[in-house]
């Protein structure tokens, strides 16, 4: 099933559209020139995931020493704040555990228990289309 979202020129950077594909509600996000589509249902308790805020990864070398990625890559469910990667739907609840010793600053993003459904989304003749 192909769901036509809207023309690209009507979809500004940082914006989102919620589209319906049969029984499924799907959120389509634009971050820069990239588009993401992810199911609008949090795998945790069914919250409207795609109504939540977008956020970039935050890392810290030590207390107070925080770095933010430039572009958002996570969407946070409005119910409990749990965050999912837009690209993969993988849940991340807090920064990952270090795979080596606790005091190494290298951060491995250890996934959470949930994966939200994601869908291919692309631009066809200046129209954003989701493949469901």
């Amino acid at each position, binding site marked *: 099933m192909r769901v036509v979202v809207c023309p690209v020129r009507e979809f500004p950077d940082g914006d989102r559209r919620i589209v319906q594909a049969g029984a499924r509600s799907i959120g389509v996000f634009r971050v820069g020139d990239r588009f993401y589509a992810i199911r609008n249902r949090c795998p945790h308790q069914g919250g409207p995931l795609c109504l939540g805020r977008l956020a970039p990864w935050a890392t810290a070398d030590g207390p107070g020493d925080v770095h933010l990625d430039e572009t958002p890559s996570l969407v946070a469910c409005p119910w409990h704040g749990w965050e999912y990667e837009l690209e993969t739907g993988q849940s991340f609840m807090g920064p990952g555990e270090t795979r080596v010793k*606790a005091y190494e600053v290298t951060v491995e993003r250890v996934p959470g228990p949930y994966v939200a459904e994601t869908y291919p989304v692309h631009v066809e003749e200046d129209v954003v289309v989701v493949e469901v």
Partner: protein
Amino acid sequence: VIDCDVHCQPDSLDTLLDHMDPYWRSYVEDATIALGDPGSYPPHLRGDVPTSAAQLTALLDRDGTDLAIVSCLALDGVHRHPDYASAVARGLNDWMRAELLDREPRLRASAVVSTTDIEAAAAEVERIGEDPRFVQVLLPVRSDVPYGNRLYNPIYAAAERRGLRIALHAWGRPGNAPTTTGIAATYLEDYVSNAHVAQNQLLSLVAEGVFTRFPQLGVAVLECGFAWLPPLLWRFDKDWKGVWREVPWIKRRPSEQVREHVRLTTAPGHLPPSPKEVAEVVEMVGPDLLLWSSDHPHEHGPAGAPLLSSVDAQAAAAIGSANAAAFYQVAA
């Protein structure tokens, strides 16, 4: 058995002054200062705090204790003159060394420092911490500001360097709020609230990144209970998942940091009546987190023995001595 919380204090300020710079004798006499009474206990469980090695030796013999860590709360009653408080702290440490540790080899001690002068406190940790019989730095669980605050970093850095643990013991200086909501009207509220203040200190230590900055640091919570730990950690983890980006230096669940860095003494314990329920509480808390303590001379009731007899032999051995031996790097 390693007893991780036995109280001691000099029998008088005069005894303590023998271990202090002569200036402070005139200061004390001019200001008519007495040694603060740390006995903030109900009459039925007050007891006499040991003041000599001979009394402690008799206690260890009576209880069959292999090793005991003494804690002196006398500094809690000392007022806020930073130089006097630091001098009393040094005097108490030298008194413990000369009068207790040198006379009873089964004793280890908690180094006393005053947070009225953080640099002096750190210097005292460096000085007295050279003696391996001092195994931890004693701080009152009630603080001027929460212990996660980075103003305490020099103390933590010195403790980590010297291989000392940090101990947060029930009570604190008069004037510091005894409850998490401020100054209470009754002694009863003060007494019950040590447990709640301890919980806030654990939140502060983790959230402000003390264990991230000082990965070798360990914190022992003395005489504040432990049965409250599981729901605290559940909530701590749960809310961290949603608001982690406020504290991205916490790279593992807060509960994991607490379980790695924090230990709690067993008296008082806040335990249910039946052995089956006691075993369930210990399992939920984690037997590896508990340090056996008598809290002598304070008699909290006969709950200590059921604690050990309610759990399996391995857990009883861990609580009775193995946890303390590993945490403090001491051999019973």
